[in-house]
């Protein structure tokens, strides 16, 4: 069926053997001679002033080689907290020792004196006037309110006298501040199209609800790790488990004031990233500082517990959403007000709130989103950052509307989906997309149209959209005298991208996939490459690879033209040889012969170069259907069927694409049903796999994946980014299925058994 011989085929990945034999080298497998073990010293309080840091006892421990604090950061840029900590686990110092256990012992011997401050960990509490202002003047913390809060704190500390009446009066004063003034705001984003008030007024049905989505951890299986080695010339080498070695290079350079030429970042095999390993530099900078101080290589490796307290997880949020529609099923208006928990720094994916618009024609849309400071670590990207949260709200509410107007949820969505040329609410117009095809494909595959549900069983559907990113990259291709093809580039492999690049180049140079090898350079040797996140790699590096292979292809034809004494127009590269199209008898020369010949030509060896940075991407849709059974006694939900379709444009390696769909869907399932970073009075209280449950093979059935291919005009062979879309609809898919099974809408994730039991009880069951 396919006109292609290598792309579009399932092939074993280029890194297959090293990954199944334990040979692949991950960050913690790097062990240069003389390496020391680094350990970060972390705050034991979620909000506190630091009164003193005493390292004297730790310094005396045999085997300790260095202890550093902010005073040891020559650039003065903040690496460690000094006067104040804003979350449990915030780094205050770092130790290097000859052994990992000694480093840990030393970290425990560092004595820190704290003055504990009031803690706020819930976004809705943090925006209230009564919340402590985490960044003082840096936020919208009104001056009067700050004064009142300071008075309350002062009175509360005075233990000798009872000030409870005064405190109550001051608290009452605080409550007078209007609700719409939000405090502890780290960032905001607003957009509007049409007139929502008018839209709601014209609607026959209006539904309004508040959706609560928890903070979850990307939970890549390899915790953050870096190994740094600073030599006496000042050159710094960093082995980093990262999605973006070039971003790490600039991050280290910026933080420590080291020129780019003095830093080489070597990306090690990455044990999962999902966005959490993009530009995050928690371990890299301390490793470099410790190595500079000791003159020895230093490894800083986080434990799983450290991952939970000081990783950069996905932000939780609260979304108040309102949707209006007509009796005949047209969505007229939607309005969202969202508060994203950005933790101690700004940066949650607040801009993604716009994704509540989904892929529907909504003439009137208004979105107001705020990032809110709380006493937690900062956040980072997690697979389609912000989209699963916003789409959970949007797609849950869509089902409520469908139910109220008595329309099938799939038909309701199909009816409202945008088509090519339609206006996108608050931004541009729709290119050619496969929204309807993808939803219809999953409905057909799941048996939606003749679905049956037994007692306590239910079906749920949802769709989620995402558009892959794009970024700069460079690839070199060379052809060797045995006819083999070598690729050189600098982008990190993210679960199969090196394989896709190899397939594309094999396709263009018409050689078997097995004749291609691929080598990744470090930041000293490879051309600049964008980070491997945002579903960019196959799109960006695929296009780059294509250009490089086409460049080599051109040189091959020129060499053949010289060698065969005929015009390039008479030549064709096919099955690893250049053929003279019109020759009778047939005349050809193999790639290997041409490569050998090239070595003695003026032009030299066959080297193709590809360089690419930007092209418009096309949106992709993921559509999913789940069938569940809920035990009303225990509240446990069992998945009976989970089907996921996705418009991938073109599947370069179908097995790898299925793997992305299956993996993303299960991460979405886990966010819906199991995962939640929990916070007590003093920070995260579930920093381990016993209390923070991620799914195992025992939790789920087989995920059925359905590949839909509506080509993207600018993608290599029509390919779109595939990594992120599959997580986007699953949260709502599961909530919609549970609603169908028990008749009660759960708007607060995760849908743990106790929540189901409570929901049933509150509804008189």
């Amino acid at each position, binding site marked *: 069926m396919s006109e292609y011989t290598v792309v579009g085929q399932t092939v074993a990945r280029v890194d297959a053997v090293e990954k199944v034999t334990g040979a692949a080298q991950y960050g913690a497998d790097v062990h240069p001679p003389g390496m020391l073990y680094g350990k970060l010293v972390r705050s034991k309080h979620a909000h506190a002033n630091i009164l003193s840091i005493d390292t004297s006892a730790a310094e005396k421990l045999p085997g300790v080689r260095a202890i550093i604090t902010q005073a040891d950061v020559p650039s003065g840029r903040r690496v460690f907290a000094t006067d104040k900590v804003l979350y449990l686990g915030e780094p205050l110092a770092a130790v290097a020792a000859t052994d*990992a256990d000694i480093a840990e012992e030393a970290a425990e011997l560092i004595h820190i004196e704290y003055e504990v401050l009031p803690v706020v960990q819930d976004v809705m509490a943090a925006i209230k006037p009564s919340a402590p202002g985490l960044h003082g003047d840096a936020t919208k913390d009104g001056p009067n309110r700050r004064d009142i809060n300071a008075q309350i704190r002062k009175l509360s500390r005075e233990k000798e006298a009872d000030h409870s009446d005064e405190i109550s009066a001051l608290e009452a004063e605080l409550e007078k501040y209007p609700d719409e003034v939000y405090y502890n705001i780290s960032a905001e984003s607003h957009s509007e199209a049409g007139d929502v008030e008018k839209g709601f007024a014209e609607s026959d049905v209006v539904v309004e609800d508040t959706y609560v989505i928890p903070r979850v951890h990307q939970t890549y*299986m390899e915790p953050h790790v870096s190994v740094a080695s600073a030599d006496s010339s000042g050159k710094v080498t960093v082995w980093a488990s990262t999605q973006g070695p070039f971003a790490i290079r600039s991050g280290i350079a910026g933080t420590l004031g080291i020129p780019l030429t003095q830093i080489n970042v070597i990306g090690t095999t990455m*044990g999962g990233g999902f966005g959490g390993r993009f530009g995050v530099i928690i371990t890299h900078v301390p490793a470099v500082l410790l190595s500079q101080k000791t003159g020895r290589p230093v490894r800083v490796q986080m434990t799983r517990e450290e991952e939970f307290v000081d990783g950069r997880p996905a932000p939780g949020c609260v979304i108040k959403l309102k949707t209006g529609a007509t009796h005949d099923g047209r969505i007229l208006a939607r309005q969202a007000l969202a508060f994203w928990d950005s933790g101690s720094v700004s940066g949650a994916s607040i801009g993604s709130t716009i994704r509540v618009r989904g892929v529907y024609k909504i003439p009137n849309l208004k979105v107001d989103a705020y990032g809110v400071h709380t006493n937690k670590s900062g956040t980072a990207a997690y697979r389609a950052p912000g989209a699963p949260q916003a789409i959970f709200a949007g797609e849950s509410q869509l089902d409520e509307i469908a139910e109220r107007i008595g329309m099938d949820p799939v038909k309701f969505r199909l009816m409202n989906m945008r088509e090519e040329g339609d206006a996108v609410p608050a931004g541009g117009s729709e290119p050619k997309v496969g929204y309807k095809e993808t939803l219809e494909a999953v409905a057909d595959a799941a048996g939606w149209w003749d679905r049956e549900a037994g007692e306590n069983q239910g079906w749920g559907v949802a769709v989620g959209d995402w558009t892959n990113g794009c970024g700069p990259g460079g690839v070199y291709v060379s052809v060797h005298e045995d006819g083999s093809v070598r690729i050189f580039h600098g982008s990190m492999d993210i679960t199969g991208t090196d394989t896709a690049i190899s397939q594309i180049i094999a396709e263009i140079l018409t050689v078997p996939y097995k004749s291609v090898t691929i080598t990744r350079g470090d930041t000293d040797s490879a051309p600049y490459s964008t980070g491997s996140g945002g579903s960019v790699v196959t799109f960006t590096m695929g296009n780059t690879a294509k250009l490089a292979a086409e460049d080599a292809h051109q040189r091959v034809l020129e060499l053949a033209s010289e060698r065969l004494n005929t015009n390039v127009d008479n030549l064709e590269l096919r099955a690893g040889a250049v053929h003279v199209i019109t020759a009778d008898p047939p005349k050809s020369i193999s790639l290997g012969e041409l490569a050998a010949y090239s070595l003695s030509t003026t032009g030299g060896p066959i080297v193709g170069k590809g360089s690419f940075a930007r092209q418009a991407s096309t949106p992709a849709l993921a559509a999913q259907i789940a069938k569940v059974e809920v035990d009303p006694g225990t509240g446990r939900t069992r998945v009976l069927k989970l089907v996921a379709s996705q418009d991938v444009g073109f599947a370069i390696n179908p*097995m790898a694409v299925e793997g992305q769909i299956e993996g993303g869907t299960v991460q979405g399932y886990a966010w819906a049903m199991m995962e939640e970073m929990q916070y007590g009075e003093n920070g995260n209280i579930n920093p381990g796999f016993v209390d923070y449950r991620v799914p195992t*093979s025992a939790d789920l059935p087989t*995920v059925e994946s359905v590949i839909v291919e509506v080509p993207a005009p600018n993608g290599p062979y029509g390919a779109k980014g595939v990594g992120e879309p599959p997580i986007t609809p699953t949260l709502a898919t599961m909530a919609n299925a549970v609603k169908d099974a028990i008749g009660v809408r759960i708007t607060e994730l995760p849908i743990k058994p106790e929540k189901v039991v409570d929901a049933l009880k509150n509804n008189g069951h």
Partner: protein
Amino acid sequence: MAKHPVSLTVNGDEHDLLIEPRKTLLAVLRDTIGLTGTKEGCSTGDCGACTVIVEGKAVTSCMVLGVTAAGKEITTIEGLASDGALHPVQRAFIETGGYQCGFCTPGFIIAAKALLDENPARTEEEFRHALGGNICRCTGYTKILEAVMQAAEEIRTTA
């Protein structure tokens, strides 16, 4: 901390080592012997990335002290291929796409191998539960189960 003399056999090779009693078997394998194929994912026995076979049983090596493995026979991921040929489980993981980032893969392959040695005639549902001690964050488990079922089939038909 005082070190203790310990002899253990890893993938058929005998090692005479001096190790601190607080070092886990995982630390001994990775840091002392240099076999880094076995991974550290949680250090609390919950993720299965550090699974090795000790005397025929799959165990999480982060939960075993190195000194207690004295005299025992240990198989790690590096010891699975024989005579240059991959083990059927390793081949099946490649052919079905049963791995992505690969970090959990050594633990999964070792756990599956131990289960298959014990009884290759389990159903898929039984394997799903038997492998519940290993966490994979990339694959969603569908292709891992395919790999294990494929290897089980091969082992049953060639045994």
